[in-house]
């Protein structure tokens, strides 16, 4: 009986202490990255390499996802609204849905898998094969060599990829709406403009920026704090993708509440 009580107390203690320890480790990492920012000559060239790598490397998947998203939105809008509501509403619905929600969120979820998994796996493998220890033993900062370039590359490239996705999705939606619903260019353009607010484009970019921070920071944190060999790397990768995806959806709600005022 007493061992059961001890076990329950141990589990309860761990359930409080483990998240607190994780918050502490994350804060430590942020402080390290803040200090590493002074080493511009180290992180700047690596950031450019990373940005090029994730930007070009992710372009195909982003183009594919955004094309399908725009097309499907146009088809579903046509299915729901034809006959009851003016056809130009399809233009409004495609543009607003894509720019406000689908473009940034779908791109972020795809990139959470593509970039987040890659970063967590790279850093996790470097941790378990002692490469990060080796870097430290040479008196060099893992923050400026490994972490800052990855996080900044995300902050630079993901908003750009979101903007590209917005344009491609709206364009594809336009083409699909025109070819399947018979909407004219003038009607689609009118619909796209009629409910458009100047904030909408910025909102999409701001979301891209916050999602980029979530992807970069969480995946680097999970990879950097990997423990216990190959199994640990697997756990870090899964944890990075799941945590980042959930955080993207959570940020989506918070940003909508904070920024979009009716």
């Amino acid at each position: 009986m007493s061992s059961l009580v001890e076990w329950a107390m141990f589990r309860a203690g761990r359930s409080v202490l483990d998240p607190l320890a994780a918050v502490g480790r994350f804060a430590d990492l942020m402080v390290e990255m803040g200090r590493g920012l002074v080493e511009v000559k180290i992180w700047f060239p690596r950031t450019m390499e990373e940005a090029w790598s994730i930007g070009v490397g992710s372009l195909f998947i982003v183009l594919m996802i955004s094309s399908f998203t725009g097309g499907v939105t146009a088809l579903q809008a046509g299915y729901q609204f034809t006959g009851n509501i003016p056809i130009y509403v399809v233009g409004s619905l495609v543009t607003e849905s894509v720019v406000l929600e689908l473009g940034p969120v779908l791109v972020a979820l795809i990139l959470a898998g593509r970039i987040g998994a890659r970063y967590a796996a790279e850093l996790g493998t470097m941790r378990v094969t002692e490469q990060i220890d080796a870097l430290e033993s040479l008196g060099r900062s893992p923050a400026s060599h490994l972490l800052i370039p990855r996080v900044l590359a995300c902050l630079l490239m993901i908003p750009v990829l979101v903007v590209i996705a917005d344009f491609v999705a709206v364009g594809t939606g336009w083409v699909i709406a025109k070819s399947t619903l018979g909407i004219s260019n003038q009607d689609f353009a009118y619909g796209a403009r009629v409910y458009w607010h100047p904030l909408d484009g910025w909102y999409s970019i701001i979301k891209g920026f916050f999602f980029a921070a979530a992807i970069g920071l969480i995946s680097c944190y999970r990879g950097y704090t990997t423990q216990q060999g190959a199994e640990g790397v697997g756990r870090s990768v899964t944890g990075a993708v799941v945590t980042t995806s959930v955080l993207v959806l959570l940020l989506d709600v918070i940003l909508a509440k904070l920024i979009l005022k009716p």
Partner: protein
Amino acid sequence: MIEIKNVSKRFGSQKVLNGVNLVVNEGETMALLGPSGTGKSVLLKAIIGLIRPDRGEIIVDDQHVESLKRVALSKLRATIGYVFQNGALFDSMDVFENIRLGLTDEAEFKNPEYARTRAAECLRLVNLQPDTMKKMPAQLSGGMRKRVGIARAIAGKPKYVLYDEPTSGLDPVNSDIIDALVTRLKDELGVTSIMVTHDVRGSFRTADRIALLTGGKIVAIGPPDEFKESPVAEVRAFLERDFDLEGNGAAK
């Protein structure tokens, strides 16, 4: 000089180091023997500040490693070369870039001509051809990776070198080359070394003193001849496999 005073370290419920005391003098080569899992590598990592001890002091060149700030620790690390058990080469960089990162002097690091010459020199010291520089770590065998790791550790001409099993997995010829390198670094450059190893014969050839770490403590320490005659049961058990202790004490 490296001084380790009453150092303890625990991982979860496992107490790995339990009041370790050790002094390594300037220019001395200390071999640290001990069964697997007794915290030899943990002790090496604590010396360079990669692991913080729970208790005790680690003093290198009169600096308390466990309480050094980031910049001071980086400066101290620049004077210490660390040879990792499996090389720990950066797999996204070729051999040259790996060795170049070992140049802890910024002026030398930024001088490509010097870096290339020094990399070739270090590769020759560990019995590798200079054209190995162009290869990626994935193209090297385990033994070659280990030797490139040693080349990286000595590239910055460190005052101290910490070796974590430098000869494990190497063939006898290359083990002898590494042993000779340790001796040469001591004789020519006065490098102070701590060598964690299971290679008992190699340690008798290269070390000035040998220590046995077991049960979280140093249980025996002394020059090779003295160590071989130690009455401590753990030492006898450890040496039995490599030496004919019942006979005249010569290596088998």
